[in-house]
């Protein structure tokens, strides 16, 4: 049975993914900041079939806390089969423009904490010569736009980081999956109006699970985002900069 570490386990998309693995009787180590939520989720996974569930408290905006939780994870489990990184935060772009402190804080959550996790995880898996790393990025990471470039740039950095990591680890029998959702109906987007392009977090989670099982490198969730992004990225910058997006 797979041993899976889940960072940001309480995210709506993460829950949908790991419920599928619970049915397969996997073992879980969940990371999150809210103990009540983690306990509810642990109970849920157990009833659904998980063989064992542990959880660790972590604040991804604090690198000390991340490092402590990674340390604990290393002592708890010496064999890691899958590392799933799901946490993230969608900040208010305007706030970021006027307050560098806020921006820095967001980068801790959306970028730095993930790099910290990937550094430890990649070395761990490299040593084992096996395993699977998966990170939720975003289509927002493919091209910057006025309304959310702070968030987009952090996700964009992750996309590039994962590309390099994938090359580095491919000779070690390690898969690196970039799970790239489009608009997803989840607490993160609760304040937004839901248009036709929105998918449910259940659907995104189930598609992500299928892609992981197929050991995909990059997957758009759902796949129609691939086409949208090809069009979106082919608009010449001269025109693009004038668009209201």
């Amino acid at each position, binding site marked *: 049975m797979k041993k899976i570490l889940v960072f940001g386990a309480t995210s709506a998309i993460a829950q949908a993914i790991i419920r599928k693995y619970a049915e397969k009787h996997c073992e879980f180590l969940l990371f999150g900041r809210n103990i*009540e939520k983690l306990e*509810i989720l642990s*109970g849920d996974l157990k009833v659904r079939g998980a063989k064992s569930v542990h959880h660790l408290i972590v604040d991804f905006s604090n690198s000390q806390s991340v490092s402590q939780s990674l340390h604990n994870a290393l002592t708890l489990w010496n064999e890691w089969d899958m590392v799933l990184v799901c946490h993230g935060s969608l900040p208010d772009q305007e706030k970021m423009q006027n307050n560098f402190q806020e921006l820095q804080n967001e980068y801790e959550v959306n970028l730095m904490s993930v790099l910290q996790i990937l550094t430890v995880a990649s070395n761990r898996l490299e040593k084992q010569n096996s395993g699977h790393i998966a990170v939720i990025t975003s289509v927002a990471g493919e091209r910057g736009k006025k309304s959310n470039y702070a968030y987009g740039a952090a996700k964009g950095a992750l996309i590039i980081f994962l590309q390099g990591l994938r090359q580095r680890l491919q000779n070690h029998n390690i898969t690196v999956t970039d799970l790239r959702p489009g608009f997803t109906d989840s*607490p993160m987007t609760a304040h937004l109006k839901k248009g036709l392009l929105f998918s449910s977090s259940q659907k995104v989670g189930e598609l992500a699970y299928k892609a992981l099982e197929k050991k995909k490198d990059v997957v758009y969730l759902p796949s129609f985002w691939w086409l949208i992004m090809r069009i979106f990225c082919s608009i010449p910058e001269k025109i693009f900069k004038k668009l209201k997006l």
Partner: protein
Amino acid sequence: MEKTNFNSWGRLSHKVHKGYRLGWKGEHWPESSSYLPFGLGRSYGDSCLNSQGLLLGTSQLDHLISFSDDTGELACESGVSLLELNKIFIPRGWFIPVTPGTQFVTVGGAIANDVHGKNHHKAGTFGCHVKAFDLLRSGNEKLRCSKEENSSYYKATIGGLGLTGLITQATLQMKKIKGPWIDQEIIPFKNLDEYFQLAIESDQNYEYTVSWVDCLARGPSLGRGLFIRGNHSSLASKKHSLKQPINIPFNFPDFSLNSLSIKIFNTLYFYKTFGRKIKNTVSYVPFFYPLDSLTNWNRIYGRRGFFQYQCVIPMEKGAETIRELFKVTSHYKEGSFLAVLKNFGSLKSPGIMSFPREGMTLCLDFPNKGSQTKKLMNDLDKIVLQGGGALYPAKDARMSLEMFESSFPNWREFLDYIDPQFHSDFWSRIFKK
């Protein structure tokens, strides 16, 4: 604040319904003048809507809490759907004790409408199998409710239309089964007399019974239809797989369900069996949930939406009243697409506002054609009143205060348990608030 637009299954309301989806039991509710829980919106009328305040969407309040394989006792959050419970527990040999005709219903919604299924004559309502639940009231007061604890809230909340507070989690008694298969029989009947006879016979030896009636047939064929009965099969070995439903992505044009197409449909449905009795073993999915294979089938009624009309008539006056109801409907040109007839048994629900009671229940639906549809339903009301019957709020978008009072003689007692901050469009319509 979430801007998703919530609606009920009949799609009759074109107002904006604000909602906030809860993800966790302990989550703080956004400020609002009033609240109403919202499950999956499978109620047809306005009992799951609150256009004056905020809907508390529970579909993500869907965590399982505990399950005992020895006793079949399941604790889960209220937004867990019956679909999810079936997927998880049928392979383990356990089934929900009572199921309505769709799996897209939450546990909370099933309690608040105290839903019934094809086994009412054997098992009573959903509420009969709810051992306990937690009720969260607007003042942040949390009540553990069961027959022993806060029992008056327990009785008021089962069938309580979401007005007594938010059910956050519930404990259900699941039922042991051998597998996902049902041994079913489909028996055509030529008229209502044959139905009455079949129902009495079948309710003895079959756990599940229901019948579909062609409401456009008149004269000697009045009330012809198909009687469907079944029991859990002991067949366990055959491989069972679940099919993806087909989605209806847009509203059909308003003319698509004219009386001709309904007549063709009803006739086809009747002759599906070529007048012969069918006996076979089928999966639980087509047996219990024939409509679930078309997601959003309500869109075939077009933009104007549709009405359902479900009543129950006490046994003494059942036969004559049902016959009268069919007579009136069969003369109405914009006939019903689905007519479902079933006998309810004598097992009493703990809910004081529960709809099911011993008698015959008839369920009809009508595309919304404005005043003529309303007039027809008003005519049906008179017959139901005369028969001493009741109407089902989960299916209602138009009943009068008079109908409500005579359907629910305990309603005054119920007022004491309504949460002061909970409110529904159904309630304001009935009481003209």
